[in-house]
């Protein structure tokens, strides 16, 4: 039975966002947003503070609109599970510039560390594989993070990686909660005007 892992989530996320270049980032509700914020706020981060289960789909729409850019969705196991069907939808579209990284601690960390489905036997990377994701990884060692980072930037194939992180809550680093502001600064950074 899988139940998260041992990796430090902040170190994993900082490693993935190093030398981010033209990377576009979408973060799922909860700790994944704090991890990305802790690595440094950026105009090309879109933090979701709600709409649980939508992070992967926001990433799909963004990847379809901007095929010239690598798009990274960083989310947790609980957030992804709430929109599990999205894996089927995304597998059919197969955008080469989209990578989904699931920070899997096997628990709902935000609500008091109740065990999630992944902590009780559901392995998200196997589901992605069954859906036909061309690139699937299960990462339990820190050394694999740099390889994953390079692959995200390569834009060669739709990818999902489950990263087994420790079930612990580092101090919260809160991203801005004004969703309109975050939207408009993201679009502005891409050269798009607000309405």
């Amino acid at each position: 039975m899988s139940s998260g892992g041992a990796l430090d989530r902040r170190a994993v996320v900082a490693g993935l966002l190093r030398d981010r270049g033209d990377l576009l980032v979408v973060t799922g509700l909860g700790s994944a947003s704090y991890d990305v914020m802790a690595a440094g706020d950026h105009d090309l981060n879109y933090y979701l503070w709600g709409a649980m289960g939508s992070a992967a789909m926001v990433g799909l729409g963004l990847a379809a609109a901007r095929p010239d850019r690598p798009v990274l969705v960083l989310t947790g196991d609980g957030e992804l599970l709430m929109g599990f069907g999205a894996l089927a939808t995304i597998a059919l579209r197969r955008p080469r510039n989209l990578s989904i990284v699931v920070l899997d601690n096997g628990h709902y960390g935000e609500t008091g560390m109740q065990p999630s489905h992944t902590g009780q036997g559901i392995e998200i990377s196997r589901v992605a594989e069954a859906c036909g994701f061309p690139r699937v990884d299960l990462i339990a060692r820190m050394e694999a993070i740099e390889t994953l980072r390079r692959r995200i930037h390569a834009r060669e194939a739709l990818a999902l990686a489950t990263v087994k992180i420790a079930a612990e809550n580092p101090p919260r680093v809160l991203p801005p909660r004004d969703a309109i502001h975050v939207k408009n600064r993201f679009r502005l950074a891409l050269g798009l005007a607000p309405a």
Partner: protein
Amino acid sequence: MASADAAEAPSWRDEVYDVLKQAGVKHVVYVPDAGHATAIERANADAGMHSVVLTTEEEGIGYLAGAWLGGDRGALLMQSSGVGNCINMLALPASARFPLLMVVTMRGDWAEFNQWQNPMGQAAEAALRLMGVLTWRTDDPKDVGPLLRGAATMAFSGDCACAVLLGQRLIGEKEWVK
């Protein structure tokens, strides 16, 4: 399926797609419904359109938010029963003022054979409004183009969430026994 307006050109079914194209829509995301068959077929055949089939309607709200972040316009096509699946996800356009254009084909509002469709069909428009979505509803083929055009303007030029509801009298009675 009734198609009394089939001889007119363009029919409201084609007009839905024509208006979306004229509004600059590049993504049609949908859960299939017979009432949307023409738009879905045309989207699938259009090399300039991302045509995306969803497993559930709420996926479309996230998708279209992402497309807008990247500079693109899109529309979500669904049946009235799908409105219920979207409720919590409608916090996304409400909080971030993402444009959202929905076209909803009604069930459970006229000559409905399957009473299981009635609860969500009857609640669909009120549920959308509860979540801050502007709505327009019609049973008249002449209204479809103008209402959708107006909704697209208010969505893409005013950052509003907008839904056009196409009534069951417009779509026609479903034939249950052929």
